[in-house]
Structure formats: C-alpha cells, structure tokens
C-alpha cells in the first residue's frame, strides 16, 4: 500500500509507516492528556472544597465556572470563542507585534494542519475507492489533482507561518528582556516549530525542484517527507501534553473558564 499516491512511485512513502507513526502519536497524546486530566482532577470542583481526584473534576469545574455569572466581563461563549480564542484580542491589546507574531503562527499552522488533513482524507478516499473498484470519483478527488489544487494555499500558509516563526526567533535571540527570561520550556516549543517548518520547506523543495530544496537529489524527497511527517506528528500531537504545546489546549480552556478573563 502506498501513501502520497499523487506522487510518482519513487516518491511514495509507505502508508503503513505513516499510519503506525500517526497511531503511536495519537496514543501518546491520549495517555498524556489522561495524565494531565488526572493531574488537573487533583483539584476540587468548587472554591474551598476538598480535592476531587476524579478524572471528571476538571470538566465539572469548567462547566460550573462557565455557567456562573462573572462580575466583570460576563461575555458569551461565542464571543470568547471568536474574539478571544480565534482572534486572540487579549494579545492584540497588550502588544500588536506579539499578536502579529502569534497570529501568523497560529493561523499558518492551523491552515496547514487542515490542508494536510484534507490531503490525507483524499488519499484515503482514493485508496478505499481503488480497493472497492470504484472509479467514478469527481476529478478533484484524485490525489494528484487535489495536490495541485492545494499547492498555492500550501505555499501561502507556509510563508505566513514562516513569518511568525522568524519574528519569534528574532525576539528570543535579540530582545534582551525576552532572551533573559527564556527557559528550556520556551525554547523547545520554538525549536520544534522551526524544525517542522524548515523540513516541510525542504521536502517540498526537493520534490518540486524549488530553491529551498537546495538541489538535493530527488530520491531524498521521500525520506525527507517522511522525516517531516514523523516529527510533525511527534511534536504536534504526541508531545502536546508534556510540553509548552499544552498551551494550545489549556489557553482556550482558561479563556472559556474565565469568560475571556478580566
């Protein structure tokens, strides 16, 4: 079985390899989130109450807080979701530059994630339909066609992501206050993100012959793509519960719990 069916035979990655990595990553993610939920569940389900210890303590307390009346900003879940979680206005209020940096990373990242998922779905549809002997798929659902359709958006969102990452690296290295307060917890996040983005560019460059492939032989494309997929899965899924990547889950939850905050 092949993966990346839209690519010529030489560039194919084995479907099994990728599926094993994906399952492993999701498995590690689930175990990590379970440990986190257990850890959070060591708290109580009300101010001044006894620690709960139940895995349900966190969702219970979250639901309780979300349904309580807040004295300062008693805003709706929808407002919190759109303005605080998606638009991230709390960051914008504090620092437009930091907002731009974070928003480009967030937006580029999310968009590429969705495009990758879509590509994966098309590959799967193609694979299954081939197995079933169905050949009447709309043209755009053929992996090679769909891949071409995604080429431009993929490029755009990669540039957006890269812009944010460059600003983030610049801040960490050259803004004294930020550099001095940086700890390993922060660096790992940015290093992971940078490695994923750069390998993504290189894998794409080798495959398409663009300059960010550094003229590497085309046979290197599959291992580079595999490496990119593997570290993306490891960093972006498996490592979330154990690192600063947890903020992708915890910050939206904190925003919801506190109705967008004070």
């Amino acid at each position, binding site marked *: 079985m092949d993966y990346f069916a839209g690519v010529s035979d030489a560039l194919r990655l084995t479907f099994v390899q990728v599926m094993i990595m994906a399952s492993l990553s999701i498995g590690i993610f689930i175990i*990590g989130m379970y*440990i*986190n939920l*257990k*850890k*959070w*569940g*060591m*708290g*109580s*389900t*009300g*101010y*001044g*109450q*006894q*620690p*709960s210890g139940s895995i349900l*303590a*966190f969702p*219970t*307390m*979250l639901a309780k*807080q979300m349904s309580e009346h807040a*004295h*300062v900003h008693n805003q709706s879940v929808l407002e919190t979701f759109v303005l*605080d979680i998606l638009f*991230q206005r*709390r*960051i914008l209020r*504090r*620092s437009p530059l*930091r907002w731009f940096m974070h928003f480009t990373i967030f937006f580029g990242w999310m968009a590429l994630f969705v495009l990758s998922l879509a590509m994966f779905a098309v590959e799967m549809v193609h694979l299954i339909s081939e197995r079933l002997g169905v050949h009447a798929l709309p043209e755009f659902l053929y992996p090679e066609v769909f891949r071409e359709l995604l080429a431009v958006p993929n490029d755009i969102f990669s540039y957006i992501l890269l812009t944010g990452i460059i600003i983030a690296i610049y801040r960490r290295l050259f803004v004294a*206050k*930020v550099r001095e*307060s940086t*700890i390993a*917890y*922060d660096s790992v996040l940015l290093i992971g993100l940078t490695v994923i983005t750069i390998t993504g560019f290189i894998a794409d460059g080798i495959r398409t012959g663009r300059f960010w492939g550094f003229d590497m032989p085309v046979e290197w494309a599959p291992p580079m793509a595999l490496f990119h997929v593997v570290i993306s899965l490891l960093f972006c899924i498996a490592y979330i519960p*154990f690192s*600063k990547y*947890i*903020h992708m889950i*915890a*910050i939206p*939850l*904190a*925003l919801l*719990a*506190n109705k*967008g*905050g*004070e």
Partner: protein
Amino acid sequence: MAKRKPSVNTENLTAVQLMELDSCSRCGECVNWCPTYDAAGQDPGLAPRDKILRWREFMNKSYGLRARLFGPKEIPEEDIEKFKDDVYKCTTCGMCATVCESAINTVELWESMRANLVKRGNGPFGKQGAFLKLIGQYKNPYMEDNKNRVNWFPKDVKVEDKAEILYFGGCTAELKQRKLALATARLLNKLGIKFTMLGEDEICCGSALIRTGQYFINDTAKVNAQKNIDNIKAKGAKTVLYACAGCYRASLIDWPRLTGQKLPFKVVHITQFLQELIEKGDIKWEKSIDKKVTYHDPCHLGRHVGVFEPPRAVLKAIPGIELVEMDRIEENQRCCGAGGGVKAGVPDLALGVASTRVEDALATKADLLSSACPFCKRNLSDGRDAIGAKQLEVEDVVVLAAQAMGIDLSDSPE
C-alpha cells in the same frame, strides 16, 4: 520500596486552577505590570509568571508523568518556604489577571495557593497570623471592643433601628478612619435617607482572612459572613451600602461563594448610590472645593468588580473640583500597596508601592489624591509621608462629597 509521598498537595486549588498553571504562555506581560515586583526591586521571585512556573513544577514533580512512573520527586522544604514568602508579597491587586494573555484568574490562584500553604503549615506571613485570633475574639482585626464601632457617633447622627437601607461601615472606617464613617452617616442624614447599621453586631467582612488564605480555618469567614447576612436581614435591609472597597468586594463576591447562597439584598457602593442621586438632581451642593483632584481606583472596587465610573461621576459633580487623571487608571491602575494582607504582613513593601502611587499622583500636579476606600487612603497617606510630599492632600471621595454638601466633619475623632 515504598513510593515517596508528594511534597505538595492540591488542597484548596480547583481543577480549573490546576489547568491554568499549564495555560501560562510565559508572555511576561504580568511581569511588566506587577506593582510589588517593581517595588521589591524587580525581585524575580515575585514575578507572577515565575510563581506560576514554580507551582507548575511542584505539581509536575508530584503528579506529572515521571512522578506517575517512578514516584514523586521531593521538593526541598526551603523551596516551598521561599515560594510561600513570595506568594504573600502580593497585594491581590489583580493587575496580572487583567493583562494576562491567557486570561488566568491569577488573584484567585494566589489566594488558593495561600490557603493551600496555610493548610500545609507554611502560611500565612508575619503578623497576618494574628488575624484569625483577633477576628475570633474581637470580631475585628484591630483589637478594638466591637461596641466601639458606632458608639462614638456624635448625637446629631441619626441611625434607624430598622430600615430598607443599611450602611455596612467596615472595621477600618468604624474603628480607625472614622471621618469616612461619619461623613457617610451625615451625608445620608442630610439627604433624608433613612438607614440602619449593624453596630456591635457587625463582624469583619472576612476580606483579611480570605485574601490571606485563612478563610477555611474553623470556617470562620463563612460563619461570620452568614452572621452578617442574617443580621442584615433582621434589620429589614434590602440595599446595603459600602464605603470600603474591601468589604464591598467581600460581600459581593466572597459571601455568596462562602455561604453557597445568593445574597438577599443588593450590594451597592456609596459612590454608585451617590451617582444615581446626582443624576436625579437630588443632591444640593453648598460649597465649592476649589482643588485639582486626582482619583485612585481601589483594586477591590475597580478591577475586581468593574466600578470605575461612579466615583469619577461624584468628583466631577462636586463644584470647584477639577478632575485630573493619572497615567495608570481604571483597569490599568497601579495598586496602593495595602491589600492582600501586605500592609500587615510586609509593611515595607506596602509603603514602597504606595510611594510609587503617590508619585503617579504628584505627576498630575494635583492638590489632592482621592480614593473610595479607607484602606487605600491610609496607605496612600503613609506613602505620601514616606516621600515627604506634604503638599498633597489624601482624602476619600465620600468625605469630599460630604464637605461639598456643607457637612461639617471637624468633630470627627481622627
């Protein structure tokens, strides 16, 4: 080999608060604004971001992945003691919560950590340890006979036995900053508003115990809140007025939480009450106060509950007053330094923060620095004296309003 026990526990922390520890993005915004971090010479331990990091590490060492696999890692006792010292050097002003990009409710987090450390045997800090005994014995933290709350009112002050409006004076105004209590009472009298008070049945609102993490001991704060609520009900009050930001916040937020019930009366700050009367045209000003006045938002009235406009509306309505604003106001206000038990526990730090706030006021060239809380007034006055800014008057908005209504306060006991 038996597994080691975790060095910290999660008593008094909610599940959402434990999650909030993981939601700090370490943006450092809170560090830029924290008044005690600044006043302590940017002591890294006081930075809100650092406190979150340390407690998160405590949690991970005790309950994280490694702890689950190989047992909890011991946290040296001196690290926990140091953390306790740092978490108590915070006025619970809420500035860090306001600017936090992750919307962490930091004030509640600090208070829960304090309660946890009290239970663990580390907290509270310094003289704060006496609050519980004093409030238990005297019903106020000032070691005053509780009868003295209002028995000093001059004869002309008319307090009803029962009324729909009750003035909850609070320990500081009734026992220490009496000019404010007298101004409030006479002002209500002059407006013809019948009001009652709890007198010697009034008990400390609990702010001192709650903010310093001692509220749960013997359920003192809860029992006292319930007694106050019952006594207020027995007086027939439907609206309770407050001239103290600390009592106002405690009644509005903490009493319902402690007792688990909605309050059977409306909680109103006196400046909100006055603003309404001013808008209706019910207040007749008799005197002009020809001063340039700046206004300091008390944390517990402003940021904590969002009352920013009413005190300003009162000041603007007073004839002669020119209101000038400091740079940091409303939700970005700089704390006076007294709250969160810091005045009692770490007086030098309280004074340091107050001095900075007085400098903010001096920068506006105001003649008078006003506030709407006796505790702020006290600390700002101390800050003013500490930097020798004798020319700056410090006064409460309610006192100014009373004076502008032609009320004589020269007989106030202060």
